[in-house]
């Protein structure tokens, strides 16, 4: 398989009056074409910021790229000109978001929002811009393809008239408008009811399979990621701490933080085991801990952990971990 997306030593800082926060501190990861990758971590670990970096959506200022490369199909996304970036949005890389209620424009009809996206992508590609009518026909078929009944009525409605699950389907349909290669899903089920969550996850899995999409799924919920992704990257405070195939990670996590995450998930089959939390809380990125960013919360931390940042190293074939003490 060939790599579709390669992120190398990517550092992103957010500048503010209080100083510069190293929100992403040397991210390294690769997504193979046609594969599914999940990114898991606590809120604030930088996973959404990472996702937005792919489409140049982080507002700058305050965001500032400190170093690194994000190569997509061989081109560095971080140095793309705005027009070239616009040509990618929706057509090569598409994104779905967390809370469909706030990511749909409240005062525009679904038809207007979808038509504008379709026609905007046409314009950015430099070809002929479809007429509104043709764009609407495309929107109609997209809504049908994500399992929404009565697309014509849906197109005429406004976001507040739809249920949460319907809104998320509309956003997914919008993301498919440009027939993208890479689908980035940022917490797509977090704001939904559990039953609707399952439906939306099943829909995403189906689209990935049928359309041959490459998926980057971001969630704080290990269960969601495990259900949809073949590979998992665990992030902590702006760093990648472990990168492993899903099954291997769930059965035998190597990094103490990944071990903590898995121990924190309640097991429905074995309710007698109380899930354990990880002591402490996520550090301030304005003054992150020295060395390993996880060391203040880690029960295996030694003097070396506070002094030296552990490198992400291949400990087992296909498994990388950033910990001084990890053993196969």
């Amino acid at each position, binding site marked *: 398989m060939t790599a579709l997306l390669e992120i190398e030593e990517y550092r992103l800082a957010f500048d503010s009056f209080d100083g510069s926060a190293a929100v992403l501190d040397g991210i390294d990861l690769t997504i193979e074409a046609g594969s599914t990758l999940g990114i898991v971590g606590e809120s604030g670990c930088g996973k959404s910021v990472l996702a*937005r970096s792919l489409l140049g959506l982080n507002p700058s200022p305050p965001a500032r790229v400190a170093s690194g490369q994000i190569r997509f199909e061989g081109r560095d996304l971080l140095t793309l000109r705005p027009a070239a970036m616009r040509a990618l949005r929706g057509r090569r890389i598409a994104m779905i978001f967390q809370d469909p209620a706030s990511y749909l424009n409240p005062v525009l009809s679904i038809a207007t929002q979808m038509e504008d996206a379709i026609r905007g992508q046409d314009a*950015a590609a430099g070809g002929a811009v479809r007429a509104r009518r043709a764009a609407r026909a495309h929107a109609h078929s997209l809504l049908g393809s994500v399992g929404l009944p009565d697309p014509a009525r849906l197109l005429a409605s406004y976001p507040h008239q739809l249920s949460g699950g319907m809104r998320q389907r509309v956003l997914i349909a919008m993301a498919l408008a440009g027939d993208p290669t890479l689908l980035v899903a940022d917490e797509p089920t977090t704001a939904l009811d559990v039953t609707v969550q399952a439906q939306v996850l099943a829909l995403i899995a189906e689209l990935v399979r049928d359309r041959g999409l490459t998926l980057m799924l971001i969630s704080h919920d290990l269960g969601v990621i495990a259900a949809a992704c073949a590979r998992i990257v665990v992030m902590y405070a702006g760093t990648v701490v472990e990168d492993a195939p899903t099954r291997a990670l769930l059965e035998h996590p190597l990094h103490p933080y990944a071990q903590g995450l898995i121990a924190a998930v309640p097991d429905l089959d074995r309710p007698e085991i109380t899930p354990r939390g990880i002591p402490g809380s996520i550090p301030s990125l304005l003054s992150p801990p020295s060395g390993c960013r996880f060391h203040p919360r880690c029960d295996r931390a030694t003097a070396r952990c506070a002094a030296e940042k552990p490198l992400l190293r291949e400990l087992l074939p296909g498994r990388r971990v950033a910990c001084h003490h990890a053993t196969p």
Partner: protein
Amino acid sequence: MDRGLTLYLARRIGLAGLMLFGLICLTFVISNVAPSDPAALAAGPDAGRSQIEQARREYGLDKPLPEQFLRYVGDLAQGEFGRSIATGRSVGTDLLRYLPATLELCILAMLIGVLVGVPLGVLSAVLKDGPIDHVTRIFAVSGIAMPPFWFGLLLQLAFATGLGWLPTSGRLSVMTLPPDPITGLMLVDAVLRGQWDVFREGLSYIILPAIVLSFPCLASILRVNRGEMVETLRADYITAARAHGVTPWRMICVHALRNAMLPTLAIIGLRWGWMMSSTVLVETVFDWPGIGLYAVSSAIAGDFKPVMGVTLIVGLNFMIASLIVDLLYGVLDPRLREG
């Protein structure tokens, strides 16, 4: 029209009716506490005590207050505002004569305010903290801070007296015959009648007072619109629109502006109401023959029926403006259409 919208409208109109009643009570009270005796005024400066008493009976001013109030309301219902002592005409006739001039001035000022204020607000928000943003900020602060009569005098000094490009005051030169009225708005009438020379001359007279009147309005529209645009451009749905490939132009002018226009609209409505009342100062400085000048000259003469009439018109205008704003809210925001 769906049921929700009808209900929404009915509620708004009902509220407006209540406000109108309050306004009528207020003007009545003002006329009664004003430190002048309308009977003495009506009878004339040389009238004796018995003549004044006769005038008092004639105007019904000797009746108890509740009865006077009922009569006042009854007269208003028939479009009767009373008689102006200074002009000798009924106040209703005078208002019909002076109102179009004020309306023309206010409409032009509001057009300037919206057509300059909204785009500048959008531009300042998009180029936030850039040079344009700083310039418009200074511009807006001075617009709100500068007293209109002083700004008017300055403009007169510069463009009329100094450069001689524009006339100082009035609505048209005394040598020019105004076009036969169709709408009462002179510029519109001149266009409708094809009298382009009159139109150009009228424009040279109206432009300075219109700029003075529009300045504070433009300034607040600009600031509110900028603030709302800055907020809206940070919204999640704008991030999503960018991610989906909506063109920047369409994203700013439709996706963001449509949301930012809701609070801006409220300011436009308020400003339209204020404009009708602040036109008093501008009309006095520029000798503009509108209801403001009419109210001022009547008040100086102690003639209170016209002042009451103008107050009522200004208040009514305020109410109509907020009603229209509420309606436009419903058009812009689909969430309000369902009650």
